[in-house]
């Protein structure tokens, strides 16, 4: 094992930081805070075009698919640094969907979808959960029926984050209603502007917007089906494993903790200094230890990916650990700041812009999203240690 970044990785990190220093502007940050990435012609869109121009959306893809051919560790370093800066980086389309298209897609799938994904022109919302199929995803009921050269899709999806700004849905549908639950599922890529697609916003506690999306006789060419018909379960579980890894790099945790270390030494309005309280010192030390380990878990998962292994158990461990840590950090943040910690997000009087007030409301998402931590604990016990399934 080697815990040092090599010269190549250090140079890469320097390049990423240089890019962020030059391109993360006040205007970009203001738009992120204000509009939750929803301005198609705004600062975020311009920032994304710069990323596309550098080829960073496909940085870990092979050159034959329009990628830069850099490794999983490079991607991890970039993602962690983007998270630290709070900048919108490569999204799940490039980190988890595209690898599944490369691995399982038809030649036409690859030619049609990969180059525009690499340019940042195609972004997908993940069409997995339904009102009656959440954690129990395999009981999904959205149907796709073949009609000549087209699939006709009917049903609805929920927790469909980003549908309002995505170009496509990466849609998980039932194509064989008679097959066993996991066996009759396929993945179809559906343009969001297709007739019959309707998006209803759902606003979460954190202010985060997600959606419910309805499909009413939506027609797409048969060639939009990814890979083979009725084999979709393997593609979405593979993508979910990658998604967990991408969702759980520790960059944002490191940033939150660095800010807490400063706030802990800054007098509050009543003149008291949080770090003078030994209980806070101890909680900060424990948080340092935990954030350090969350980072190591990310390096471990990306090292395995670099070896061509999908680290199912390892990213489950990382996701559970870092999501529960994120909740502890949010809680510590408000505790340290006391009453001032309650000053709302974006209140000019709030320390650190109220980021901990917001984080407290945001953190629950990461604990149940992307596979609930309860199911992931089952995965660790069953896939990691061969403990018997209890019929979930």
């Amino acid at each position: 094992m080697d815990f040092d970044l090599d010269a190549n990785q250090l140079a890469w990190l320097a390049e990423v930081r240089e890019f962020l220093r030059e391109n993360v502007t006040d205007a970009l940050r203001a738009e992120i805070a204000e509009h939750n990435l929803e301005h198609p012609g705004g600062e975020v869109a311009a920032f994304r075009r710069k990323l596309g121009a550098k080829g960073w959306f496909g940085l870990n893809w092979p050159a034959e698919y329009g990628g830069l051919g850099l490794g999983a560790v490079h991607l991890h370093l970039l993602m962690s640094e983007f998270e630290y800066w709070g900048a919108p980086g490569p999204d799940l389309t490039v980190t988890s969907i595209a690898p599944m298209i490369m691995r399982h897609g038809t030649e036409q799938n690859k030619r049609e979808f990969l180059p525009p994904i690499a340019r940042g022109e195609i972004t997908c919302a993940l069409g997995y959960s339904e009102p009656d199929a959440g954690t129990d995803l395999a009981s999904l009921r959205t149907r796709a029926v073949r009609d000549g050269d087209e699939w006709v899709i009917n049903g609805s999806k929920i927790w469909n984050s980003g549908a309002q700004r995505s170009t496509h849905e990466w849609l998980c549908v039932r194509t064989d209603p008679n097959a066993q639950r996991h066996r009759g599922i396929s993945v179809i890529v559906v343009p969001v502007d297709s007739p019959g697609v309707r998006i209803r916003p759902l606003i979460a506690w954190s202010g985060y917007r997600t959606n419910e999306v309805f499909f009413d006789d939506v027609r797409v060419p048969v060639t939009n089906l990814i890979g083979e018909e009725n084999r979709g379960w393997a593609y979405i579980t593979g993508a979910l494993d990658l998604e967990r890894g991408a969702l759980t790099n520790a960059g944002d945790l490191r940033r939150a903790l660095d800010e807490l270390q400063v706030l802990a030494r800054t007098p509050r309005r009543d003149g008291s200094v949080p770090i003078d309280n030994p209980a806070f010192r101890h909680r900060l030390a424990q948080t340092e230890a935990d954030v350090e380990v969350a980072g190591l878990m990310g390096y471990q998962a990306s090292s395995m990916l670099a070896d061509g292994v999908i680290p199912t158990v390892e990213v489950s461990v990382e996701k559970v650990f870092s999501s529960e840590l994120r909740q502890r950090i949010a809680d510590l943040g408000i505790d340290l700041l006391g009453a001032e910690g309650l000053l709302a997000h974006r209140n000019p009087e709030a320390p650190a812009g109220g980021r901990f007030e917001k984080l407290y409301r945001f953190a629950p998402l990461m604990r149940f999203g992307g596979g609930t931590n309860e199911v992931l604990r089952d995965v660790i016990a069953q896939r990691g240690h061969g403990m018997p399934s209890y019929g979930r």
Partner: protein
Amino acid sequence: MKLVATQEDRDLSAMLRGLLAARGAEPSDALAAAGIFGLGIPEEYGGSGGTLSELGVFAREAGRALCPLATYSTVLAAHAVLMLGGEESRHRWLPDLAAGRTSATTALWNANDAADVTPALRADREPDGGWRLTGTADFVNDAETAGLVVVSGMDASGRTLGFVCNVRGPGVTMRPLTLMGGHCAACVRFDDVAVEDVLNDGKPLDRNQLRRTANAAVALTSLDLVGVGEAVLDRTVAYTTLRHQFGRPIASFQAAQHIVADMHIALTAARLAAQSAVFRIGRGDTAVRETAIARMHSATAAKWATLDAHQLHGGMGYVVETDLYLWSERARVLSTLGGGADVAATWLDDDEVSRAAIGERLRRKDGL
């Protein structure tokens, strides 16, 4: 950066697992024959070469197999001589220590807090240039069976010097301390004891090298704790899979699976942290931050793995004819000596490197 075990590490670990499982009445002979005492000691001093990380591979397997802790006492004494120097002392002591021919121990840090490396003994200069030691070193591991002790003393001007002493020499008396798990330590009294050797060519010891020596002990025993926890996790999975209640294996209950998953998560955290600390110390760093984090995670993970294992074994794991308690005691002993998680948390405060790193990271966000 590559956080997956190399093929060499996997081979070493498989070899050690076989060796430690098959050992007979005198484990140290087999370990000596396999060159374990010389892991991480350069070949020019009679060692087996390699890095401290390879000794770390041993530590993890040693915890898993409950290899007698006396092995560490000798190994850590050898690494103390290696780290504290000088050349003459290394050539004099390391060949026998690295071959396992001489047993030894250390009295270089406070058993309650490995960051406290203030000498316990007074070092008096003799007219002929020799040194004599007086005072009491408490909780010296395996002192009764060790031949030598690597110990620090403070001279009249307050400087810290390192020495090698014969534990059986005149003026050394000891009161054995019986600890949990039959672990052997002693309160050792030195009364004007003539030393065998002065380390570092007689020059005062560098405090960072002393901390690094203590940190090596903490980091390696942290990896031992990981091995303890992993062994207990494996046997808990095996037991709960065999044990049926309500007509099904108790391993099929989600409550049992979640306890196992939490053991796994905590042990993964502890393993990565401890491997990182051993790696950094092996690279020459004092690694205060990494060592603190390794101890915080490993002490907690191993203790709770063993206590949760008792919970999942129920009465079947509580009777002494099941030997589960041996791992539980080792976890409690090793997570205490040198300082537990609460003590280790305070080490983060005196880590200048990590404080500087926070400053550097915060400067980087200028304008953010």
